[in-house]
């Protein structure tokens, strides 16, 4: 027990003030996961809107696919992206393997079905009413989309938070694609995993605290937005 307490104490001390290395790791984590979440949301928001509003043949199949994709293990997505971007893969010429770009791509693929499915579930009760209201009052197509997005903004926000939390905490896939290269692709989760295994327990704890605080800050900020 004293071992853990000692670790916590030393870990906290490492953050006061944090070294430039820790700051860099935090910055890269936020940048990679933020970019990935943004990318995923850009695709997931229109798709969930479309699925919530449109009736078409094969819709159930598509929704089923999205829900299944949500439960695909991250490491399989890592495998897929690795195959795509490794030197012999179709995107190999871009030289993306072990770069933040490849990490963004993999994390976006992981977040996309999750954001889509969560947004769709939350939109179910909202989208049809918002559509009826807007259409009946004479909205055109663009206005209709604007009204539904506005009415469903909390649904999207919640789904996007969940997507971000998922990817910023992801380890295995990010390690596989990024390679945990110091100063280049090392992010919070991969650093925690490496430092702990190297025996630098207190550094692992320090980074863990940062990860927790980051997740907390994002959630508080989003909830603040929702309260408005």
């Amino acid at each position, binding site marked *: 027990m004293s071992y853990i307490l000692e670790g916590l104490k030393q870990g906290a001390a490492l953050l006061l003030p944090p070294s430039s290395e820790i700051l860099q790791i935090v910055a890269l984590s936020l940048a990679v996961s933020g970019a990935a979440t943004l990318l995923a949301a850009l695709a997931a928001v229109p798709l969930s809107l479309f699925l919530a509003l449109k009736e078409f043949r094969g819709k159930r199949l598509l929704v089923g696919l999205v829900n299944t994709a949500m439960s695909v293990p991250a490491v399989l997505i890592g495998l897929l992206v690795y195959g795509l971007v490794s030197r012999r893969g179709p995107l190999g010429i871009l030289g993306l393997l072990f770069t933040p770009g490849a990490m963004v791509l993999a994390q976006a693929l992981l977040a996309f079905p999750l954001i889509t499915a969560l947004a769709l579930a939350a939109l179910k009760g909202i989208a049809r*009413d918002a559509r*009826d*209201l*807007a*259409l*009946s*009052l*004479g*909205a*055109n*197509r663009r*206005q209709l989309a604007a009204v539904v997005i506005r*009415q469903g903004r909390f649904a999207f926000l919640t789904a996007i938070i969940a997507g971000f939390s998922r990817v910023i905490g992801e380890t295995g896939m990010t390690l596989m694609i990024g390679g945990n290269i110091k100063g280049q692709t090392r992010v919070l989760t991969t650093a925690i995993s490496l430092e702990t295994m190297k025996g630098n327990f207190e550094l692992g704890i320090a980074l863990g605290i940062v990860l927790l605080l980051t997740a907390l800050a994002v959630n508080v900020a989003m909830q603040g937005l929702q309260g408005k």
Partner: protein
Amino acid sequence: MQICVENLGYRAGKKVILQGLNLELAPGAVNVILGPNGAGKSTLLRLLGLLDKPGLGEIYYDGRKRSTMSRGQCTALRRRCGFVFQAPLLLAGSVEANLRFGPRLRGLNVGDHKIRLVLEKTGLNGREGQEARLLSGGEKQRLQLARVMLLDPDLYLLDEPTANLDPLSVKNIETAIARLAGEGKTVILATHNLIQARLLAAEIVFLKEGSLVQAGAAAEVLSRPLSLDIAEFSAAENIIPGTLVRREGRTVLDCGQLAIEVVSERSGGRAAAVIRPEDILVSEKPISSSARNSFRGPIMAVADLGAVMALSVDCGGVLFTVFVTRISCAQMNLAPGIDVSLTFKATSVHLLPLD
């Protein structure tokens, strides 16, 4: 707006909601869509309001086909319609913000006096600043109506706008609806409230299980229902089943102890007599007249309906409901236990075949 419906059909998944509907709705009048729950009333309104696409068939708006309209034309047509939903759909925000939403979508700016006017018409005077979602159910419904009235559409589509409301709100909304028809607007009102239909309808469309049962002038549908469903639904107070027989050159409906003379081409089979209470004359003594049916029996109950009193009279095991004015009721000292005579013409009896 002239609206015509041709072979209209709609399904939700495999379930048939509407089928084979052919209708012509009266422009500039209140058209009431009547029918029990699940008859397809709401779906019909949604199709007419271009909120859903018909699975089958065609709707004509002033002669223009729904199926060939472009997206822009649909939007333009929707802007001539006002829809009031059964469950109020309101935005978070003030009453005024909700009212201004429609004009904003059209790029219009309406003056404050117009806002005040529609609030007055719907009995919501002075509520501009209130949070819309905190209004009572009746007020929400009136706000929905005010919102469409502000847009001054040609066609009003009202989906049970008075369901579950307090009597004052109902009165408010009914008055507003009656006024709309007076202004030459076409109103299509879905309801299962018969009293409302009697009060407001110029035309009645009766639906059941997605199909048309009867459509026509309100007085015609209510006094000459084509099916027992309508008769029962329209709470026709006197529905008396029996067997048609020929007796001494006349056709009578044999109802056990009672035989009602009727006018009918048929002279056999089961049938139900439908007699409107207002067609039955009540008197203290039997009266001699050309009316072919006269029965006598004790009053079982007296109900005060406001303008009129409803008497239940037991004639040979058949309970008749008849109306008398409050004054006559007092003058004749009508009370439970007193014998009265009921007289009605054979031509006042509407017959429904039962087999």
